[in-house]
């Protein structure tokens, strides 16, 4: 599914990723943990194609196709979904309009027929109910005036509707209380499937109590410095990142 090899990337003059390699097979959930400034968010932005992140070396492919040369919206149509740490507010664009525009744009890019309004509304009603999102809220401007928890649930709803193949969750637990964390995690777990890969980026182990990863990688100094099973996350929680920070330096 996702294959990253020797990835180097910089923001302005600073090199942030320094030879990162990683492979996430279809059907697996991999966690990326690391201290602040390790390059976790940079990795998510490089994979999704945000402007200002320059790749100087290395490759990233999705099922063999080069991702890095594609525009962000083309990557999305290929199945890349980044759940933002801080989802943006889109004033004047109702959440429903936004979702339908996105879904149909992706379908159009893939040469599939667009979804008609009745079928779309039925789909969204079902998915929203599962996430305990009030349907009336979807008539309001996307994320405008939403609480932190509501914004994260909107991200999960978008995932559920758009059905991406590669999910990147960037610090999805930040700003969530326990109840919201449980709802969001259940939403993510419901999306686990043999055809889908997930990359869960997090500073704390807490989220991984709810979304159990198949593999855990430690990102430090712009590279993966250690990999292991779920027990590695617990070890990091106990002992901190100091050991790996030294290894990176």
């Amino acid at each position, binding site marked *: 599914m996702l294959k990253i090899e020797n990835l180097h990337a910089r923001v302005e003059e600073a090199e942030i990723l320094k030879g990162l390699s990683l492979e996430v097979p279809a059907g697996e959930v991999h966690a990326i943990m690391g201290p602040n400034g390790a390059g976790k968010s940079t990795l998510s932005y490089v994979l999704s194609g945000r402007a200002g992140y320059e790749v100087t070396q290395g490759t990233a492919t999705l099922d063999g196709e080069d991702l890095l040369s594609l*525009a962000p*919206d083309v990557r*999305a149509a290929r199945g890349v979904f980044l759940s933002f740490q801080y989802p*943006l507010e*889109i004033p*004047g664009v109702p959440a429903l309009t936004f979702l339908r525009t996105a879904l149909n*744009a992706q379908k159009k*890019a893939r040469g599939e027929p667009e979804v008609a309004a009745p079928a779309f509304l039925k789909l969204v009603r079902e998915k929203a109910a599962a996430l305990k999102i009030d349907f009336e809220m979807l008539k309001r401007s996307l994320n405008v005036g939403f609480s932190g928890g509501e914004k994260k649930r909107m991200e999960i709803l978008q995932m559920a509707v758009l059905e991406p193949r590669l999910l990147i969750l960037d610090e999805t637990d930040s700003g969530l209380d326990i109840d919201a964390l449980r709802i969001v995690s259940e939403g993510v777990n419901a999306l686990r499937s043999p055809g889908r890969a997930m990359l869960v980026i997090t500073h704390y182990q807490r989220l991984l109590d709810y979304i159990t990863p198949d593999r855990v990688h430690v990102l430090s100094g712009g590279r993966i410095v250690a990999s292991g099973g779920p027990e590695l996350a617990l070890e990091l929680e106990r002992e901190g990142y100091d050991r790996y920070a030294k290894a990176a330096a």
Partner: protein
Amino acid sequence: MNLAAAIRDQDVAQLPSRRDEDWRWTDLRGLIRQAPEPSTPIWAEQAGEGPFAALAGRTVLIANGHGERELSISGQAVVALDVVSAGSGGHAAQLKIAIAPDAAVVLLESYRGTGEYLSHTALEIEIGVGASVERIVLADEPAEAVGVSQAQVTLSPGASFVQTVLASGARRQRIETRVRHPGGHAQARLDAVYLLGGKRHADITTEVAHAHVDGTTDQLIKGVVRDQARGVFQGRIVVSEGADRTQARMGHHALILSDRAEVDAKPELEIYADDVTCAHGNTVGALDEEALFYMRQRGIPEGQARALLIEAFVGEVIDRIAHEGAREVARGWAAERLKGE
């Protein structure tokens, strides 16, 4: 300075210039070196149908300065005022509109034409006690024209005056509205949208003078400028001594979509009364790049994402238009002006 006299006397010295504080961003004296010849008359058949023809029970035509000079409206009425210009001459028109007490009137005003004309329209609108008026001004003029519309609105106690100006700009275009506000629970709303491309220039100037207690004024103006276009907003709200408990709110927000486009704004609140609630906000900026990336990450192509954001931005003003047919005309106009963004 007197634009109508300058046109009548073919005297450029009387044109408003940058030395007139209210005209410093729309300097006609510096633009027009030689006074145009008087426009030749055009016939009603040549003028064709205006954008609001299908919506109005009655259409008043002013063609190259010629048309009715007085108009009385009572009861419930939808009246179109179609100001048409053609050619490269100059012309000026005056129209006095009297709206009877307790009338409910929709006034659908359009400015349109062909050529490089210089046009001035002076309106006096008197609104009787308890009447309500919704005025829509669609100023969709040719790129080479110079068009100025100046309206003096006198509001009575208990009346409501709600206005939305839709401006496409021109070589120079100015839509000016001055409201004498009597307080007395009368309400004024002065909204506008300007959507400018090429080298077009639009100037939205408003002034509301609150004379007595308990008046309300609300303004929301939004603009989108690209290429080398220039948008001007001058808004003044004066709350005179004794006009206590006045509530006034003014917002002007503009998007600049190119490096060479320009927006000049001068919001002014002059308050000489007590217990007044006044607020104003003014922002000028580019499209939110973060929001654009977010939308693209969800699969929406860049052009479509930009169009959606811009449409939503001006939609907030257009949605406030109460008359449904006029609102649809406004949406169609905006979609046409924003094409290619």
